[in-house]
């Protein structure tokens, strides 16, 4: 695959170009947006960003895992994980289509 990696710096640049704030302030706002989303998820709440997708927090129960190297059984404690559910618009864009209709699996 294409191999390029987009980072915070690219997001800051986009905000700088499109909104017309200083670079410093653009960077601060990118950070503010990310940490607002992270705080919300850390509190267990779902974050829904229309036309992008949603981040959902799920509770995982305890289960027995295995150390793949030694074959030893180890208990995996119950924990919380977050999953990203892409919107159909995002899925279509990735497949070179536009719009939000189409397969929704």
């Amino acid at each position, binding site marked *: 695959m294409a191999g390029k990696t*987009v980072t915070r710096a690219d997001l800051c640049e986009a905000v700088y170009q499109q909104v017309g704030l200083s670079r410093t302030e653009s960077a601060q706002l990118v950070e503010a947006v990310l940490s607002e989303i992270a705080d919300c998820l850390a509190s267990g709440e779902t974050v829904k960003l229309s036309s992008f997708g949603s981040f959902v927090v799920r509770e995982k129960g305890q289960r027995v895992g295995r150390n793949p190297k030694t074959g030893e059984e180890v208990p995996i404690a119950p924990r919380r994980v977050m999953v*990203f559910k892409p919107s159909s618009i995002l899925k279509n864009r990735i497949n070179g289509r536009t719009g939000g209709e189409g397969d929704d699996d």
Partner: protein
Amino acid sequence: MIKSELVQKIADANPHLYQRDVENIVNAILEQVVSALARGDRVELRGFGAFSVKKREARTGRNPRTGKQVDVSEKAVPYFKTGKEMRERLNGQA
């Protein structure tokens, strides 16, 4: 929390900005992520997580209602892997 609530929170914390600007900021960020993935690039946001695109091979599926076989063509799906710091925060360790 939905997008408008996110915009509202950021706007409340930055009274010198118009709500319109904050909306544009949030949309610019999301659009960068979407267009990167559409190009097949990865998006890595340290401490939060990373978005990437995974290829799914063409396969023969079945209509679960009728049991009829259908050809499912090759496609790409977005994938998100939670960052280390975020994973720890979800479990109250950070």
